[in-house]
C-alpha cells in the first residue's frame, strides 16, 4: 500500500505558487470568463447529432415494427390508424432518447430534432400520439442569445451571438455502417444438418454434394450479417466477423 505524502517544496516555490493563485484571482475578478449559460435567456448551441425529440413522417413508414421491437425502454407502442396501418406512438415518460428507433427505421420515417426541453402538466400528456409526432412539439423560445463553447488547447471561450438555433435538423449526418458476415470457426465439427442453409433469409449459405462429399459455402457478398445462422447452428460453430 502506498502512503500518499505531501510533495516536498521549497519555501520559494510555495511563495511563487501562492502568488500565482492570488494573481489568478485578481485576473479573474477583473476579466472573468463566465461559464454560466443563463438559460432560458441564453441557449447553448447543441451539436447537430444531439439526441432530442423524435419526429415522424407517416408517408415513409413501411410498418416493419422495428422501432417498437428495438426500443430498449419499451416506449414505442404501435397503434392502428384508420387506414389499417400501424404507426408508432412514443411514451416520453419512458423514452431514454437513445435514437435506436431512428437508426433502425428502414423507411427513414423517424427523424431527430434538437428539441429537449418540453414540459408536461401531467404524466398522461407524455404519451405522444402519432398525429402529435408529425409536427415538432410546441416550445416557447425565450432565448435571445446563442452560446457556443469554443474549446482550444488551453482555454474555454464562450461565444455569445444574437442568433436563434434551428432546432429541427434538416440533414442528419450519415451513419457509418460496419458490414459483418457469417463464418465457420470449426469446419470439422459441422454435422451437415443444413439448418443454417434453411434459416438464411438472403440465400447466402448453400450446399452441394459431389462424390459422397458435401460442400457447404457461405457467400460473403450476399451475406447481410443478420446472425440467424449463428443462433441456429446446432453445433454453434458459426460466428459473425467484420468483412
Amino acid at each position, binding site marked *: 500500500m502506498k502512503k500518499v505524502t505531501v510533495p516536498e517544496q521549497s519555501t520559494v516555490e510555495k511563495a511563487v505558487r501562492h502568488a500565482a493563485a492570488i494573481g489568478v484571482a485578481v485576473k479573474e475578478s477583473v476579466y472573468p470568463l463566465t461559464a454560466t449559460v443563463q438559460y432560458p435567456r441564453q441557449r447553448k448551441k447543441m451539436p447537430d447529432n444531439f439526441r432530442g425529440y423524435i419526429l415522424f413522417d407517416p408517408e415513409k413508414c413501411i410498418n416493419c415494427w422495428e422501432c417498437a421491437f428495438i426500443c430498449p425502454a419499451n416506449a414505442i407502442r404501435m397503434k392502428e390508424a384508420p387506414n389499417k396501418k400501424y404507426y408508432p406512438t412514443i411514451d416520453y415518460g419512458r423514452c431514454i432518447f437513445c435514437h435506436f428507433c431512428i437508426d433502425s427505421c428502414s423507411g427513414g420515417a423517424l427523424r431527430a430534432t434538437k428539441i429537449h426541453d418540453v414540459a408536461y402538466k401531467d404524466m398522461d400528456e407524455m404519451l405522444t400520439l402519432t398525429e402529435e409526432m408529425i409536427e415538432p412539439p410546441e416550445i416557447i423560445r425565450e432565448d435571445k442569445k446563442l452560446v457556443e463553447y469554443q474549446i482550444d488547447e488551453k482555454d474555454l471561450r464562450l461565444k455569445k451571438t444574437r442568433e436563434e438555433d434551428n432546432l429541427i435538423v434538416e440533414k442528419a449526418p450519415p451513419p457509418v455502417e460496419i458490414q459483418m458476415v457469417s*463464418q*465457420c*470457426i*470449426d*469446419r*470439422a*465439427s*459441422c*454435422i*451437415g*444438418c*443444413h*439448418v443454417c442453409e434453411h434459416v438464411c433469409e438472403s440465400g447466402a449459405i448453400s450446399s452441394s*454434394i459431389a462424390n*459422397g*462429399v*458435401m*460442400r*457447404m*459455402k*457461405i*457467400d*460473403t457478398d450476399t451475406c447481410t450479417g443478420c446472425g440467424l445462422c449463428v443462433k441456429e447452428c*446446432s*453445433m*454453434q*460453430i458459426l*460466428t459473425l*466477423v467484420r468483412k
Partner: protein
Amino acid sequence: MKMVTESEWEVNVPDKQLKDKVYFENLKSVVIDTEMCSRCLTCAAICPGGITVVNNKVDFPDYETKCLDCGACVRVCPRFVYEPKSGLGDYIEFTAGRSKRFAGQDGAMVTEFIVSAMEMGLIDRGLFAGRDENWATEMFHVRDSEQLTITTLGGTKYTFADVLPELKKAVMFTKSGVGVIGTPCIVSGIRKLQQEFPIFREKVKLVVGLFCTENFHYDDISNFLKAKGVDFSKLVKTDITKGKFISTMTDGKVKFKVTEAEDIVASGCNVCTDFTAVESDASCGSVGSAKGFSTVVVRTEVAKKVIEFIRAKGHADFGDADPAQLDFLIGHKKKRAENIKR
C-alpha cells in the same frame, strides 16, 4: 486466440444402406429395430432436433417429414458399424481406492476423480446423475465440490441416465473442459463423437467408465422392485454383488437373485461384451477390491495425472486390487457376442 474462419468447408456424408430413405430410418433399421440399440443416446445428443426416447425406446416422431437427413446420427452411433470391445483392456495402473472426503457406492473414486480433475483445472464441470424422490435419474452439472453435499449424486442408479444429450449442452457452455461418467456403451458413444467431431475432442477431457453387466429401463425396474416390496421413499442404496440385488432401505433390506430380473434387462445389453469400459480414461467398479474400496483401472495419461494429483493431496487411501477377480464377469459378458445378429 485467433480463430480460423472459413467460408467453405466439407462434411463427410456417410453411406446409406436404404438409399431412398432418410438417415434416421437407416439408423432405425440397422440398430433400433434389430434391438441392438444400447440407449446410449449419442444420436439424440448430436441430432439437430428430433431424436428422443419414446416409451423406453429411442425414436424420432415424424421422422419422415422432420428428419434433416444430415447423417450425423449414423456417424456417431457406436453400434451402426459395431466393433464390440471386451476384456480388461489396456491400462497403466490397476489399483483400489477409497476417497477420504466423499461417500459413494463403494469407495466413491468416480466422484473423487471428477472433483480432483476440477481442482487441477483440467475441467470446469462434471456431469453427474442424481435421482429424484422416485429414484428416476436427472442430470447435474457439478462445478464445485460443494455441490456434492447433494448425496443423491453419488451411488449407482441401475437405470438409464441421459448423459449424452447433457454432454452436448455442457460442451457448448464449457470454457476449459467437461468430465463425464458413463457405462461402457456411453463411453463408446463419446469416443465415436470425438472421432467424428473435433469439438468433442477439445472439450471432453476426462471420461470415467463404470464396470457394467446390464442396465434396466426405469419403468421396468421400479415396477419390479415395488412388486418385491421395496418402498422408494425409504430406499437408501441399491447394490448388485455376488449375483444378488440388494435394496437397502432405512428400515430393512430386500434381496433377490439378479437372474430373477433377467426378463427386464434392456435389450441392447444382451449384445454388449464390454464389462470394464475399455475405451475410457479410467474405469471404476466394485469388483476386484475389498469392501468399501473401488477398483480403479487407470488407462490414459490424463487419468494418470489425476490419480497422481489424488495421491499427492492425500484425498484417498489406496489398497490392493486383484485383476483375477474380474475374469468371471469379463467372460460372462464376452459370451454375449453370440447374440449379435449380422
